[in-house]
């Protein structure tokens, strides 16, 4: 096969030249060329090596279905592997390379092995290595090196990708004649229309066939249609593929703003993902031609008949000089005429049908050598191109010399989007094709995609000649699956199409079997003696064509991966350069190290300061809800598992909330801040869940209650001041304040800012949570810090808070409250409201939740050595796990280490000696089981 450029014709701009490289060699092409057409025009035959057998491969198609001519394109972080050379429009400076070859494309060592070695049949690796893991480990390196296609890029992608949403009345997918006609008629009615086309040029089959429409030449008609659509305000997106059809007529479109590997202009995105919600969708996605099954049908020089015509009519190329046309339909005859008119010799037309009455066949018989009942058995040739074919015609064998085979095995309507939308297909036995039948969504399929076939196609294109060499007749070209592989799978008992697919990898390559699935199905159906529809179909999954992951991510990469919520004191903390810890979506200081302290050293210093003097911590992110109304107390007794109604005005209490299954969901405090007004707090990370839960109880379970809920999490910023000197400090900050007792509420002013003071302690020391409006909190913190420092105090972070609360035996959501623990497990059952009016009360009666035996119960652990967090509790190493450690720390003022843990029947096992063992960290500690409160058991320190 030697391709060359004709002197005229096509829609390329012959006045301009583009220069690019392929495997380091410089080539030229014209604007409008694909990489495939530009290389074919310059006589390039070999584009790559195949996945498994390293067979030489050239160009088979002229579109997105290409399984053979896959290249790597671009450099550095813009490198894109497995790009179809037929779906890549050349640009100045394009760098492309072939794949899966070593040391070079023309001399590939893998191919040498492929020639001398036996072919690797389906399931070879399963059988060869089953039960021999050592053998697999030895060979894996070589097998992985030998197989595969392109390598992914190593460097980060420098490009950005956009997401956009759109709405329209009619979305037309595909701008061939059917799609253009649909867009014209819809826009004529005044509908808002979007028209998308994956190609760079509109026209679809009109460009390929260069026929006339409504008395105009194809290109003139397309130009006229385009200007009419533009005048009517139709949004036309070329180089845009509808990759997915989702629920309720939502489609995702992938728009290429630059070609693969091409650098966009500064500040511009490389691709754009559209989410389009349409009232109606018209699918005009055309049909894909199928290859014919014969030995060597994958060799460079064997192409699809329509693709050959595309190269002649669109790109002005003759892909060969001497062509054989092999077909099961009339359409491929057009290719014979197009090639002959461009100066090629037509060696023969081999038609697998017995007859066709159409005009084009009669015209062909008059001009060319046409053989009926004829099929190719084998194509001969190598990396340099084809040399000839062996065929069978009317029972006779014949040898023909040629450098191009234009083959047509019939057409598969592109029903991918129709199927993604939940449609059904019907099988046309005569033509051998599935076409859309019923639709579930507001969608119609038109044109060739609907199964319209004017080519008198015969299903004979799906049946290989009896004498064919099945081991070299490829079905799935990209994954190197042959007819013999499908036969083997069937012989070994695979019947389900889904199993055959996975065993042979048929249709599992990046082309998702666009050209191969039906051929494989037909083979399976023939083996079973059943009609094709009974064999079944595999699922059509989005995306329709390979999509770069960057496009799906859009801007959500790097620091934009998730939102960062900054509490009002964020900037102030930043000045002290703390270590940060994400808490929910919030960024909170973990510790404020001084003089190159480690995290642990800083946290221990901060915790000691709290135990001995005073410290302050930003607690702004806690969940906070104001609940008001005549039924507020009754409502809170539905949400909280403790009593609430008994609270006097100005008093508060610790509380916790259950899920409906009786498991503890969250905990916090509830404060009666007015006669019919309460403030409820929850954990930072659980605040959104609590907000939803409150709405559920309010709207669904207790709609009759007169109560209003406001989420004030982000309104109130808060600072907890804790330590033996906290009371003195607060008295200085608010001289007029009558210092509230533990679990009491007060209002005052600090630094001129109105504050709400809740006397509650998480650390175990006398403490006050001081709340002010977020916008006013900065001077409050500054006043506390200034005066607190005079008392030898310091700010503390989440790490110190953790050490303090573990020593005090306070539970935390996400630690001990882990979605599996009941109030009994946590030792909170004595606080349960005896009236049991709360959510979770019915399920909590379940005997297995009430039972005191067999459940993991919270205990404390003591040790002389550090207790590994997350470790398991065993009697001795190795042993059966009897529990696990949820939080561990060092004693703050004394020597030793403590931890909170869950131990089976733990509350009855105080005094036992166990080992906390973490094999993954290689750490262990001997521990004693004790009560979980290690510090100030009586709570004397926070009461005056």
């Amino acid at each position, binding site marked *: 096969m030697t391709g060359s450029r004709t002197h005229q014709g096509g829609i390329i701009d012959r006045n301009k030249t583009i220069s690019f490289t392929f495997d380091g060699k410089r080539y030229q092409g014209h604007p409008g060329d694909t990489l495939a057409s530009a290389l074919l025009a310059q006589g390039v035959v070999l584009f790559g090596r195949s996945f498994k057998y390293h067979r030489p491969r050239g160009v088979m198609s002229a579109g997105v279905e290409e399984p053979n001519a896959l290249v790597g394109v671009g450099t550095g972080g813009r490198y894109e592997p497995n790009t179809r050379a037929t779906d890549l429009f050349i640009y100045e400076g394009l760098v492309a390379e072939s794949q899966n070859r070593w040391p070079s494309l023309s001399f590939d060592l893998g191919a040498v092995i492929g020639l001398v070695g036996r072919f690797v049949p389906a399931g070879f690796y399963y059988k060869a290595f089953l039960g021999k893991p050592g053998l697999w480990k030895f060979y894996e390196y070589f097998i992985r090196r030998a197989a595969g296609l392109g390598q992914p890029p190593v460097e980060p992608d420098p490009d950005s990708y956009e997401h956009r949403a759109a709405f329209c009345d009619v979305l037309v997918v595909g701008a061939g004649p059917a799609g253009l006609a649909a867009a014209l008629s819809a826009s004529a009615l005044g509908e808002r229309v979007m028209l998308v086309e994956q190609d760079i040029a509109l026209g679809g089959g009109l460009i390929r066939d260069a026929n006339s429409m409504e008395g105009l030449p194809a290109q003139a008609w397309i130009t006229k249609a385009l200007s009419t659509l533009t005048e009517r305000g139709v949004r036309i997106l070329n180089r845009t593929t509808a990759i997915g059809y989702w629920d*309720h007529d*939502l489609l995702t479109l992938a728009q290429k703003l630059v070609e693969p590997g091409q650098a966009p202009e500064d500040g511009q995105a490389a691709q754009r993902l559209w989410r389009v919600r349409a009232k109606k969708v018209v699918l005009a996605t055309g049909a894909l031609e199928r290859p014919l099954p014969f030995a060597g049908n994958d060799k460079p020089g064997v192409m699809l008949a329509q693709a050959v015509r595309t190269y002649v009519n669109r790109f002005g190329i003759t892909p060969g000089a001497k062509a054989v046309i092999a077909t099961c339909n009339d359409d491929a005859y057009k290719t014979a005429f197009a090639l002959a008119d461009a100066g090629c010799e037509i060696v023969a037309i081999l038609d697998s049908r017995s007859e066709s009455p159409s005009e084009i066949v009669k015209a062909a018989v008059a001009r060319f050598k046409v053989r009926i009942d004829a099929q190719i058995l084998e194509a001969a040739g190598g990396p340099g191109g084809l040399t000839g074919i062996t065929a069978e015609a009317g029972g006779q064998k014949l040898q023909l010399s040629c450098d191009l085979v234009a083959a047509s095995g019939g057409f598969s309507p592109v029903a991918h989007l129709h199927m993604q939308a939940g449609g059904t297909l019907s099988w046309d036995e005569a033509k051998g094709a599935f076409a859309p039948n019923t639709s579930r969504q507001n969608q119609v399929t038109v044109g060739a995609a609907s199964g319209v076939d004017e080519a008198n196609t015969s299903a004979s294109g799906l049946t290989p000649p009896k004498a064919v060499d099945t081991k070299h007749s490829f079905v799935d070209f990209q994954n190197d699956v042959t007819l013999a592989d499908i036969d083997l799978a069937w012989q070994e008992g695979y019947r389900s199409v889904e199993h055959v697919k996975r065993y042979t990898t048929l249709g599992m390559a990046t082309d998702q079997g666009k050209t191969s699935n039906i051929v494989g199905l037909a083979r399976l159906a023939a083996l079973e003696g059943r009609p094709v529809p009974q064999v079944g179909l595999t699922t059509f999954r989005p995306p329709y064509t390979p999509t770069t992951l960057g496009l799906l991510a859009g801007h959500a990469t790097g620091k934009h991966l998730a939102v960062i919520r900054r509490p009002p004191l964020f900037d102030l903390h930043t000045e002290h350069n703390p270590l940060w810890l994400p808490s929910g979506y919030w960024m909170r200081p973990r510790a404020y190290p001084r003089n190159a302290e480690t995290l642990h050293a800083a946290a221990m210093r901060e915790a000691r300061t709290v135990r001995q003097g005073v410290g302050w911590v930003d607690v702004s992110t806690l969940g906070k809800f104001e609940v008001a109304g005549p039924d507020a107390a009754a409502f809170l007794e539905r949400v909280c598992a403790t009593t609430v109604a008994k609270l006097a005005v100005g008093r508060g209490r610790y509380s916790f909330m259950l899920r409906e299954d009786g498991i503890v969901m969250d905990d916090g405090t509830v404060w009666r801040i007015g006669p019919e007004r309460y403030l409820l707090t929850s954990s930072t990370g659980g605040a959104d869940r609590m907000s*939803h839960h409150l*709405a559920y109880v309010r*709207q*669904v*379970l207790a709609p009759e209650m007169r109560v209003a809920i406001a989420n004030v999490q982000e309104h109130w910023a808060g600072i907890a001041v804790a330590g033996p000197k906290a009371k003195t400090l607060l008295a200085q900050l608010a001289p007029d304040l009558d210092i509230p007792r533990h679990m009491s509420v007060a209002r005052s002013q600090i630094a001129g800012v109105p504050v709400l003071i809740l006397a509650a302690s998480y650390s175990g020391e006398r403490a006050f949570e001081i709340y002010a409006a977020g916008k006013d909190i900065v001077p409050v913190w500054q006043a506390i810090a200034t005066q607190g420092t005079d008392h030898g105090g310091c700010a503390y972070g989440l790490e110190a808070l953790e050490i303090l609360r573990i020593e005090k035996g306070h539970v935390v959501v996400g630690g001990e409250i882990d979605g599996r623990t009941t109030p009994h497990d946590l030792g909170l059952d004595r606080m349960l409201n005896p009236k049991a009016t*709360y959510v979770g009360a*019915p399920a909590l009666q*379940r005997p297995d939740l009430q039972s005191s035996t067999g459940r993991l119960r919270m205990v404390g652990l003591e040790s002389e050595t550090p207790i590994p967090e997350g470790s398991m509790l065993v009697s001795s190493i190795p042993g059966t796990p009897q529990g696990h450690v949820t939080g561990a720390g060092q004693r703050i003022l004394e020597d030793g280490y403590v931890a909170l843990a869950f131990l089976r029947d733990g509350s009855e096992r105080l005094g036992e000696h166990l080992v906390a063992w973490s094999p993954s960290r290689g750490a262990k500690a001997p521990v004693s089981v004790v009560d979980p409160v290690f510090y100030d058991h009586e709570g004397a320190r926070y009461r005056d």
Partner: protein
Amino acid sequence: MQLITCPHCGPRAQAEFEFDRAVESVLALDATEAEAVARLYRRENPKGWSWELWRHSAGCGVFLKLHRHTVTHEIAEVSLLDAAP
């Protein structure tokens, strides 16, 4: 991405809503233990039409009752809770 027509806000994308639970698994506060087990653990999981509770969390915040097909995702009805099914 399903399209759900909120009676307050009109047709909105599914991203604005949260699925809460099947209506059948709503448990009254005064339910018995047996009822809790039946509704939470032993309820039907139909392949087909199902009554579901959703909330327009990123919109008006209202809880809605949806009659939705769990296979095709068709939505036959969206109503406020006080309306009869």
